[in-house]
């Protein structure tokens, strides 16, 4: 017996929900970034799974989008973490609840 | 006869697999992999033991002394004595350390080094694991090293460990770029990420004498030098052993390790050095190919290990010769000189390819490299004056 597309999609949904959990319920800015990374990774799993189970002409679109999304999430992580550091310099904390002013 | 000698290990494995010929295919696959793993481990752990004593002897000779010569003939059993000593030492874990991470760090480091050794072709038909994208596998697995070093530094809960780990990551990150980009021209010219294909592409001889190894092209020679220097940094060897400079920060990320865990770090470092040198041999020095047509009767694995030993000797030689560099000098070298030169190699390889891969291409590629090198030397020339060191602290 081999796993079906459904099984992969459910794992991906689980990963997405866990990422959402991390992004919504933690107070620490870096945890939120970790959650976003997990959600993006879950999306990648979906792309690859759909590519794998695609009918015969078998276009490589899924793989391409996964590669691009990995590159983009790398950029997102770099900028996000730089922002965490910059904000930390101002407020001396990484607790997102305390980032409550627009003025530095 | 010579081909039988060449393929002796392949035949040996085939014979071992023949013993269980009736078994289901998945079992045969597992046994086949296990044989490969055991072979790689046996060969490289022996080489590690041998090199650890040879390094001390060679260093000693270069410094006008004898080196270890008490245990066994010529002191060759020294590694056994060292191993016993390491095993019976007390294993100290600091009270405030993160126990699990502290334990995992050396294990992961050693595992990575062994994994990267798995994709290198050691002889004709002698690649332990052939995967579609072996070079990428090498670097993908190798990039986990930084995380493992970091784990060691953080889990020890010690200032020196942390500083050492920070230094290690900074230098590994900086030098990983030239390391990978120096490999790019080879991958471009061969059109494959499979190490076996890269070795196959370096077969044959120009004019019947000079082997078609990539190191004999201008871009190949430059890329080889860049790769070699970056490899020195990646394996934390002198003159780039800043992360564990014992006169500055005790032993860097290994400060809080003792006994067998310390030995594991030591082993991982050496295995990493073998892996990087092995990849350099595969990419630029023709892998297991003989340097001359008449010498092709010598088995292929002999050539591979001869080349590997030559590179390892250069590693030891450099350690005996050069003093440690300063951190900021190292970073400047990586970003201002090595990275542009690595990109130049990519361009020069393209020029070489489109000019017909002959003498004309050779000269054009040389021209590109010389021009960029001269431009860089003019631009980066400080006329003997060094800029003041500027410290920028992380807050």
């Amino acid at each position, binding site marked *: 017996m081999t796993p079906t*597309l459904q099984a992969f999609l459910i794992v991906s949904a689980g990963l997405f929900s866990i990422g959402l959990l991390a992004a919504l319920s933690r*107070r620490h800015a870096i945890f939120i970034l970790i959650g976003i990374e997990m959600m993006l990774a879950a999306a*990648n799993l979906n792309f690859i799974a759909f590519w794998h189970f695609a009918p015969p002409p078998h276009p490589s679109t899924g*793989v391409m989008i996964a590669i691009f999304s990995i590159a983009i999430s790398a950029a997102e992580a770099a900028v996000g973490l730089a922002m*965490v550091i910059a904000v*930390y310099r101002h407020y001396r904390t*990484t607790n997102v609840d305390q980032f409550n002013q627009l003025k530095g | 006869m010579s081909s039988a000698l060449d393929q002796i290990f392949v035949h040996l494995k085939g014979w071992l697999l023949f013993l269980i010929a009736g078994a289901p295919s998945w079992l045969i696959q597992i046994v086949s992999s296990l044989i490969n793993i055991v072979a790689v481990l046996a060969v490289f752990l022996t080489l590690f033991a041998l090199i650890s004593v040879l390094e001390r002897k060679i260093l000693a000779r270069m410094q006008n002394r004898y080196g270890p010569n008490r245990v066994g003939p010529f002191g060759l059993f020294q590694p056994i004595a060292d191993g016993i000593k390491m095993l019976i030492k007390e294993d100290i874990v600091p009270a405030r350390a993160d126990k699990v991470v502290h334990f995992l760090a050396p294990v992961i480091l050693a595992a990575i080094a062994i994994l990267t050794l798995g994709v290198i072709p050691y002889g004709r038909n002698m690649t332990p694991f052939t995967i579609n994208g072996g070079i*990428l596998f090498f670097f*993908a697995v190798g990039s986990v090293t930084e995380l493992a070093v*970091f784990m060691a530094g953080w889990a020890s809960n010690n200032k020196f460990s942390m500083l050492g780990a920070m230094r290690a990551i900074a230098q590994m990150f900086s030098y990983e770029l030239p390391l990978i980009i120096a490999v790019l021209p080879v991958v471009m010219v061969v059109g494959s990420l499979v190490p076996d294909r890269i070795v196959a592409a370096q077969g044959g001889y120009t004019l019947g004498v000079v082997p078609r190894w990539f190191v004999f092209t201008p871009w190949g020679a430059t890329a080889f030098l860049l790769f070699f220097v970056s490899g020195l940094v990646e394996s934390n060897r002198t003159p780039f052993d800043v992360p564990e400079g014992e006169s500055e920060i005790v032993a860097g990320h290994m400060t809080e390790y003792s006994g067998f865990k310390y030995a594991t770090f030591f082993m991982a470092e050496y295995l990493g050095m073998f892996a990087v040198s092995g990849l350099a041999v595969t990419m630029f020095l023709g892998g297991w190919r003989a340097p001359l047509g008449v010498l092709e009767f010598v088995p292929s694995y002999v050539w591979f290990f001869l080349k590997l030993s030559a590179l390892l000797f250069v590693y030891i030689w450099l350690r005996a010769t050069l003093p440690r560099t300063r951190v900021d000098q190292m970073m400047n070298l990586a970003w201002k000189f090595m990275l542009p030169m690595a990109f130049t190699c990519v361009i020069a390889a393209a020029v070489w390819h489109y000019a017909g891969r002959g003498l004309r291409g050779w000269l054009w590629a040389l021209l590109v490299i010389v021009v960029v090198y001269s431009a860089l030397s003019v631009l980066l020339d400080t006329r003997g004056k060094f800029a003041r060191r500027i410290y920028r602290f992380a807050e």
Partner: protein
Amino acid sequence: MNSVAFVIIAIFTLAAALAAATLPNLMHAALCLVLALLGLASFFFLLGAEFVGLVLVFIYVGAVAVLIVFTILLTGRDSREHRGFNWSGVVIALAVFGCLTWAILKAQSLTIVPPHIRALTVRQIGQVLMAGYVWPLQCVGVLLTAALIGALVLVLEEKR
């Protein structure tokens, strides 16, 4: 591709992800994220996308994880100060998971038998990338450069 491997990797990945989302110590969470991503990469291997799996390990574990860990250090060890946990997040996450699972199980077209796997070699990926996807590739290049410069500008010392 067999289901034993699938089940093992799925449990491993989800457990590591859950640990990454809930562990109190930030550094442990980051290391668990690495484990989860390694599990994801083995899913990619299982699905025949070796190249993407290797790229995932290379970029996420080699670069992003180290960046996260570095940031944790640079922002000090104040992960203990705020243990606050927002329970409404749990409810929302569970609701989203329930909805998604319900939708996936309802969709009939998803119970496909896997077709014959035609492995995508690195050469093919390169050719497709250079033929049909040149403009996206260039855009990603520009994006990465912009992100690099932006990140540098953000973290450079401010003039006081």
